[in-house]
């Protein structure tokens, strides 16, 4: 791999940047792999990267039906935070935060992780109580989170309207300073480049059409658009399409897939210093380094695979944004889009072995999987390589829906659904 550095940049300037070369190969699939990952989004590519790097499993293929990072990885609002309620979640999301810090250096790829702070607003007495409960729970679990009065919130985020005259006045906020944003495409590209360098084959435009199981029920390979690929281990990381992929192996999933929307404004000069989220009136917003306001809306109320969403959902969010940040009222929105998110009944992910030997699943990230990308890939790689979960993802099984040991994060998930 050609390492990126200042010297390399200077050298390539002499040839007008014409000779940088490919960041990863475009190989044809081999007949057999040790591990096949289905889905080349951030989580799937991170899994392949850590399989190769931490566990020495380099004979790995990542199969992608479309293009690399073209699903929810390329469609999310790039927010990173770890202020979930339960200790199981705190461990999982904090593991990701630990990896975000230093990820650019590790991948030799600028993922533009910016710990600019994530502020979650409280608008009602109930909100205030819930937010403070979260803060106390977080601090006991070693997760950084603090309470701000409306005046302190305004000081941290000057565009915020803390007038008492709006429909849902700001009564305070929970601030996680280590939260922030990262560049979503760069995360996928950085992991892809790193994994490819260690021998992982990333095969795009290769739809998986079947999972073959032997007489003993164990996985024997996958049928794809580019022919049969033999393998003993399959990791499914297919987000909104997980139910359909798992159906191929005969495993029922506790998932429902909904369109989740986001939109961006025209780019402007730096005007917004942090990330602000409001669960109650449903809006979240940050400003990208390009200058666009990146705004997250809610999910549609019905299952859909259409990758669009109802316009009334985005309108509802824009109403809230205009109320909270009046000086954005005259800004024009450039684009909106939808991604298909797989939601579990308890709003916590599933990172788990399955009843089928050799089949592993990483799904159910619902409306907030981007923030966990490095941690998710790291523990899922461990689960596949050792055939047993890492202590961090051990509670996130499919079996919890039978035992009743749910990890209820409905309040922390931030998107109403």
């Amino acid at each position, binding site marked *: 791999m050609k390492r990126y550095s200042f010297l390399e940049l200077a050298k390539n300037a002499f040839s007008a940047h014409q000779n940088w070369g490919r960041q990863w190969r475009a190989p044809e699939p081999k007949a057999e792999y040790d591990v096949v990952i289905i889905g080349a989004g951030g989580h799937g590519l991170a899994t392949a990267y850590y399989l190769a790097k931490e566990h020495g499993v380099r004979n790995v293929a990542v199969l992608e039906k479309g293009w690399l990072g073209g699903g929810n990885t390329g469609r999310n609002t790039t927010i990173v935070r770890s202020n979930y309620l339960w200790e199981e979640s705190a461990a999982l999301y904090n593991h990701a935060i630990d990896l975000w810090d230093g990820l650019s250096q590790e991948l030799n790829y600028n993922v533009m992780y910016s710990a600019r702070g994530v502020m979650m607003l409280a608008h009602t007495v109930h909100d205030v109580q819930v937010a403070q409960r979260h803060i106390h729970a977080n601090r006991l679990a070693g997760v950084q989170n603090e309470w701000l009065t409306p005046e302190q919130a305004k000081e941290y985020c000057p565009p915020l309207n803390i007038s008492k005259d709006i429909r849902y006045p700001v009564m305070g906020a929970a601030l996680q300073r280590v939260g922030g944003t990262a560049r979503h495409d760069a995360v996928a590209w950085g992991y892809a480049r790193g994994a490819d360098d260690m021998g992982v084959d990333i095969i795009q435009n290769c739809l998986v059409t079947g999972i073959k199981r032997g007489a003993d029920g164990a996985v024997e390979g996958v049928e794809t658009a580019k022919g049969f690929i033999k393998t003993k281990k399959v990791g499914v990381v297919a987000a909104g399409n997980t139910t*359909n992929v798992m159906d191929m192996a005969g495993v029922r*999933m506790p998932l429902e897939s909904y369109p989740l929307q986001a939109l961006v404004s025209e780019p402007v000069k730096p005007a917004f210093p942090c990330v602000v989220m409001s669960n109650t009136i449903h809006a979240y917003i940050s400003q990208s380094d390009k200058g666009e306001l990146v705004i997250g809306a809610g999910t549609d109320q019905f299952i859909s695979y259409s990758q669009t969403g*109802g316009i009334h959902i985005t309108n509802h969010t824009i109403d809230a944004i205009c109320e909270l940040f009046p000086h954005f009222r005259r800004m024009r929105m450039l684009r909106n889009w939808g991604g298909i998110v797989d939601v579990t009944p308890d709003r916590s992910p599933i990172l788990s072995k399955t009843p089928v030997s050799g089949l592993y699943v990483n799904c159910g990230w619902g409306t907030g999987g981007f923030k966990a990308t490095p941690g998710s890939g790291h523990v899922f790689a461990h689960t596949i390589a050792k055939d047993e979960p890492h202590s961090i993802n051990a509670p996130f099984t499919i079996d919890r829906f*039978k*035992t009743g040991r749910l990890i209820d994060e409905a309040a922390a998930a931030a998107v109403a659904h």
Partner: protein
Amino acid sequence: MLLIYCPYCEVERPETEFHNGGEAHIARPADPSKTSDEEWAEFLYMRSNVKGIAVERWRHIHGCGRFFNVVRDTVSDKILKVYKVDDPMPDLEALAKEAGR
């Protein structure tokens, strides 16, 4: 936004008048004390999450308040059939063929 026909009010109204009630035709276990953990998990949590022709419940919350069932293509979001809650599930394959899937 969907336009949905309420079979009780016999009118077409925008989606915001309705509430989606999830997958249709899931029957509650008849004898709770004889129902295993697996069967409870199946009833409570496991869902078909169909990509294609799906049956789902809707409730006309800002109208008559009644539940009814809808057959919808979850890829195009096109509604193929609406039927009352005690009517049997229609022939999905025939509806799929009609819709050209």
